[in-house]
């Protein structure tokens, strides 16, 4: 009946986030400034302890369960279920059918290999399961590889917020990208 698995792709799994185990590994990811900036686990970027990450992710999961307007998944390698990052829909606006999507991969080399696949999984979930009309995402211009991946996934750059981000001693633009369900259907949906 359904040809597509939402939570399994060629190399990756979308899984429940395990605050006991995953937070320990994610705390290590926060030593990478780009991850810390993207995760917004705290207002200022700094390495977090596993206790801090666990607490924040547990709060996030609780809010998600109560309000159903956000989602958090662990991204794991399919071959050994290793935790490599998170996929979040930090805000789902049901009345507008608008969702924000964020994918964070902890290590740079794994980001290069798997960001695109994880992003596609997030878009598929948002469009084919949640029936969103538009999915948006954002990145800083200091992350050209992330922007490149977002654009390759069919997202279009719609907004450039000038000097919105201070990172590594200078101001950078924040770029907001988006893709509509119609565009998703044209580019991705399996017949």
């Amino acid at each position: 009946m359904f040809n597509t698995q939402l939570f399994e792709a060629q190399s990756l799994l979308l899984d429940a986030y395990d605050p006991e185990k995953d937070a320990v590994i994610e705390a290590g990811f926060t030593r990478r400034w780009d991850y810390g900036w993207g995760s917004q686990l705290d207002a200022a970027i700094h390495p977090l302890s596993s206790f801090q990450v666990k607490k924040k992710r547990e709060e996030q999961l609780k809010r998600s369960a109560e309000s159903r307007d956000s989602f958090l998944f662990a991204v794991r390698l399919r071959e050994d279920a290793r935790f490599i990052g998170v996929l979040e829909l930090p805000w789902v606006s049901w009345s507008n059918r608008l969702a924000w999507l964020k994918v964070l991969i902890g290590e740079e080399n794994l980001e290069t290999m798997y960001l695109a696949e994880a992003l596609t999984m997030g878009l598929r979930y948002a469009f084919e399961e949640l029936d969103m009309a538009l999915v948006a995402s954002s990145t800083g211009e200091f992350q050209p590889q992330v922007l490149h991946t977002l654009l390759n996934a069919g997202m279009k750059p719609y907004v450039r917020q000038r000097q919105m981000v201070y990172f590594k001693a200078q101001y950078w633009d924040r770029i907001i990208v988006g893709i509509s369900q119609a565009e998703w259907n044209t580019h991705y949906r399996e017949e």
Partner: protein
Amino acid sequence: MNGDSLTGNLVRLVAIDLDEDARLLSEWDRDSEFQRLLNSESASRYNSKQVREFFEKEIDSMHFYMIQRLEDNRKIGLIDLNGIDWVSRSAWVGIGIGEREFWGKGYGTDAMKVLLRYAFTILNLQRVTLNVFDFNQRGYASYKKSGFKEEGRLPGALFKAGKRCDLIFMGILRSEWEELQNQTQ
């Protein structure tokens, strides 16, 4: 500089009075057009107790002000700075004039000028951001007049009154605001 940096030509910004203003804010929400212009989420009704509880919980994380007319001290709207990022020194602004009879008469523009002065000269921000919906042409014109520049729009991002509409992003940098001040002096 004027001693009271929160006073403009038509309005002053005053701290919220949780008893009196919660009732006022709840009353303004009866006008669904006001809500549609102000909020991206669906319009709803909240009683004054709910409004008060919201502010009791959130007030420390936002700079929220009522817009008061200088002429008769009547409170006619609201304005707030939220989502302040002290590292990037940026914040978001939200504004609404709740009393319809004062729409399109310059009160919102004056309140925004006061807030920007506060944001750049007191809080030392370097950027202020806002969202406006494509059907809110009056708001869009007012923000342009205050110095905001459009930075793009998410097409069909919102659903209002049975139609999809664009979510417009606007921003003003401190350097642009300072240049505007120099031009007007």
